[in-house]
């Protein structure tokens, strides 16, 4: 450990005490010297006077040294008395900031610092209580979403199957008008099913049950397939999808392919969905070891300033998209962000309202998933 003196409590006490000891002494020496000079010099011999002056100078130096030693000791004792408990308190605060609330300080002192210690203990207890309550609520909420979503799936399946039975002509011929209506119903049903699926994923993320299976994967074929799957959507919306530059070869990532395809898929779907017919969506892949960055640029409606900060939060939808695309769930970017972060990556965007948005997904080429951190349960970190 590096010994730091400058700016510490010890240094401050030391200088204060030294000054307190030295200044009065210096003044008194000065007066004494002046007295010798003005009064005694005429009465006694020149040599005697000089000796007396020298004497007082030596006396000053000796006392100064003594003051220095005393100040060092006193500063050490006082600062230790204050800084040691402060050190313990800082350590406690550090752990609280790190999310560990299973800690208490053993308080032995009766003074102000002891009070502070008691307050900290009380605060930790209260925060812990609040957090536990919050966790309980959150668990109940996630469970509710999970149960509700599962309950919704059965009637949604019934609807889906019934529409399909009708559309397949299994129960009689379908007129074009009927078909049109049925197709509308199928679309609504599919978007509900998607919502339920996303809700279940979001609930699993919050419950910490959204597991990842990381494997080496070839990124370019994966991306090509992902874009291939959007052909119908692109054709329906008459949007031109362009892949910039030749894609790099042999780009291997450590990733959960299925989860990553949700994340990148959601970004691409948004780009298509929020770009007007006839618009352009550009994809580029940029490798700069140890990272690969996928950029998805659209010429869509853009993201308003007000929406920028909250875009990745659950159930949040841009204020300008609500009326053009009603079927969004507000979960796509929440899922994308969680998945990208679980891959050790980053996601961000640049956007200009009415001109378009570019989303960037940056992923590490080499990624070793961390094992979940172990929460320590030591109850006392130290005593003050």
């Amino acid at each position, binding site marked *: 450990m590096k010994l730091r003196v400058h700016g510490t409590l010890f240094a401050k006490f030391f200088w204060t005490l030294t000054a307190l000891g030295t200044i009065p002494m210096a003044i008194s020496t000065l007066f004494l010297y002046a007295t010798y000079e003005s009064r005694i010099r005429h009465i006694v011999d020149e040599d005697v006077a000089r000796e007396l002056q020298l004497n007082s100078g030596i006396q000053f130096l000796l006392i100064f040294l003594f003051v220095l030693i005393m100040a060092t000791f006193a500063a050490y004792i006082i600062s230790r008395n204050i800084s040691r408990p402060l050190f313990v308190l800082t350590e406690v605060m550090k752990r609280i900031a790190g999310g560990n609330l299973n800690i208490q300080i053993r308080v032995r002192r009766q003074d102000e610092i002891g009070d502070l210690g008691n307050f900290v203990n009380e605060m930790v207890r209260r925060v812990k209580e609040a957090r536990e309550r919050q966790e309980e609520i959150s668990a109940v909420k996630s469970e509710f979403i999970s149960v509700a979503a*599962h309950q919704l*799936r*059965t009637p*949604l*399946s*019934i609807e*889906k*199957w*019934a529409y*399909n*039975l009708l559309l*397949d002509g*299994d129960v009689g011929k379908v007129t074009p008008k009927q078909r049109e209506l049925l197709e509308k119903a199928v679309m609504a049903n599919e978007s509900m*099913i998607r919502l*339920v*699926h996303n809700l*279940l994923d979001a609930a*699993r993320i919050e419950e910490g*049950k959204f*597991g990842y*299976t990381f494997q080496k994967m070839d990124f370019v074929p994966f991306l090509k397939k992902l874009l291939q799957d959007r052909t119908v959507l692109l054709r329906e919306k008459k949007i031109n999808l362009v892949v910039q530059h030749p894609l790099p070869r042999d780009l291997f990532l450590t990733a959960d392919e*299925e989860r990553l395809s949700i994340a990148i898929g959601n970004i691409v779907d948004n780009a298509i969905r929020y770009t007007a017919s006839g618009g352009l969506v550009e994809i580029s892949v940029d490798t700069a070891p140890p990272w690969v960055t996928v950029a998805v640029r659209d010429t869509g409606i853009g993201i308003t300033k007000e929406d920028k900060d909250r875009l990745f939060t659950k159930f949040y939808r841009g204020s300008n998209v609500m009326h053009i695309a009603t079927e969004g769930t507000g979960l796509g970017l929440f899922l994308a962000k969680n998945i990208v972060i679980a891959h050790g990556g980053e996601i961000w965007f640049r956007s200009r309202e009415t001109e378009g948005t570019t989303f960037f997904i940056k992923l590490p080429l080499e990624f070793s998933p961390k094992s979940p951190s172990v929460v320590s349960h030591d109850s006392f970190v130290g005593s003050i």
Partner: protein
Amino acid sequence: MIERALKTGGVPIASMLKRGEVKILVVEDDKFLREILVGKLEKEGYTVFEASNWNVAQKHIQGDRPHVILLDIVLPGIDGFEVLSTLKRNRETSAIPIIIISNLGSREDVDRALRLGAKSFMIKAHHTPQEIVDAVKKTLEEYYLRR
């Protein structure tokens, strides 16, 4: 007949279908969904048995020896995973391909079912009845004609 086809290297599936020899068991507790599936499968020419619970299903498995089982993993009063593992542990039934149809569908559920020996896992809300029928067809071909 199918068992013989296995040994002799294949009989056209169409001829077996004509004779109604391909037997499918549908285990699903929701009446509406079950009837849709049964109707679709019968239209394809299969002989279809249906069960709304495990007791009925067991009788059909023992008595009728189905060639493919469509199994809902959420059944009244019994854990579908248990059913699956029982069927796969039993020497007489372990060779029957089982397609799980369910509204569960988290990765853990799917992995667990596949580990226990299910042929495939289809989430009802994510597949049309036709897709399930196609999966049955594919499974029949894989299990009884190409091996």
